[in-house]
């Protein structure tokens, strides 16, 4: 039986909840659109979520970033292009495999660990999900993490 109380289980539960939400919005379509999600997404996942949208130049721009991610960055990157984001942040890790999502046109969940700016080891699990009608026009993302002390 799956343990639903450990940090790992809690991380996974969030990812699977976002996936269920995305499927529910999609219905019989291959994927929902960014308009189905609205701004911001549903309450219980809002704090950990973010939305990236393609602009005319072909660049991805943050349209929405949840409160927990804003706190981790000490700023709200909404409106900023993806290129402005430091890759060695939780959000940076959560968007690092976006090309694979665009290529496969399917949600991808990735976990891992990295050392943050304060030298702490951060374990994370993330999911990136495509949004669009005929083509992918945006990405819905969600990530949660925990800091661990490695002996």
């Amino acid at each position, binding site marked *: 039986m799956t343990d639903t109380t450990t940090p790992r289980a809690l991380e996974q539960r969030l990812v*699977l909840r976002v996936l269920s939400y995305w499927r529910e919005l999609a219905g019989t379509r291959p994927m929902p659109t960014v308009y189905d999600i609205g701004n911001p997404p549903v309450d219980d996942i809002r704090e950990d979520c973010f939305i990236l949208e393609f602009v005319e130049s072909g660049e991805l721009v943050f349209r929405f970033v949840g409160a927990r991610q804003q706190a981790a960055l000490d700023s709200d990157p909404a409106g900023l292009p993806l290129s402005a984001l430091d890759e060695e942040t939780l959000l940076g890790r959560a968007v690092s495999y976006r090309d*694979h999502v665009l290529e496969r046109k399917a949600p*991808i969940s990735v976990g891992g660990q990295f050392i943050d700016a304060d030298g702490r080891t951060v374990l994370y699990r993330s999911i990136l999900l495509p949004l669009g009608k005929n083509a992918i026009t945006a990405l819905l993302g969600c990530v949660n993490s925990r800091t661990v002390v490695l002996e």
Partner: protein
Amino acid sequence: MGGLYELQVFRDRAWQVDSVFDDKELAIEEARRMSEGGRQLAVRVLEERIDPNTGRTALRPVFRISKIQRSGKTEIVESQNDDAVERRVERMVQGEQVRRRNNRTGWLPTIVVRLALLAVLIAAGSWAVAFVRAYLDRHLS
């Protein structure tokens, strides 16, 4: 990205990619969850491996879960081996088809066949009696 696990659902008579995970356990958990949700009749997880010699991606089934309706009940079959589930589901489906056929061809056809035989016997008997009467009338009168 490292090893990936592709979750596929059987929809519109074909396997379709639903989502991708870098964690086998999580992919299998989601496959079970989807199956329990009632919408999917068959879900499987394929492991993606890159052949170091050719550089090509190979897919290997690592988990499969199928639901089948039998005797009005839903049964769930799951295995780490895709072929094993395939064979078991096939046996269950065949068993169910035989059961349904037997149910369908139970008492009604038997009665119809018996009535038809009886009708043929009566008709043959009537014809024989009529023939004998006609013979006797012709030769005795």
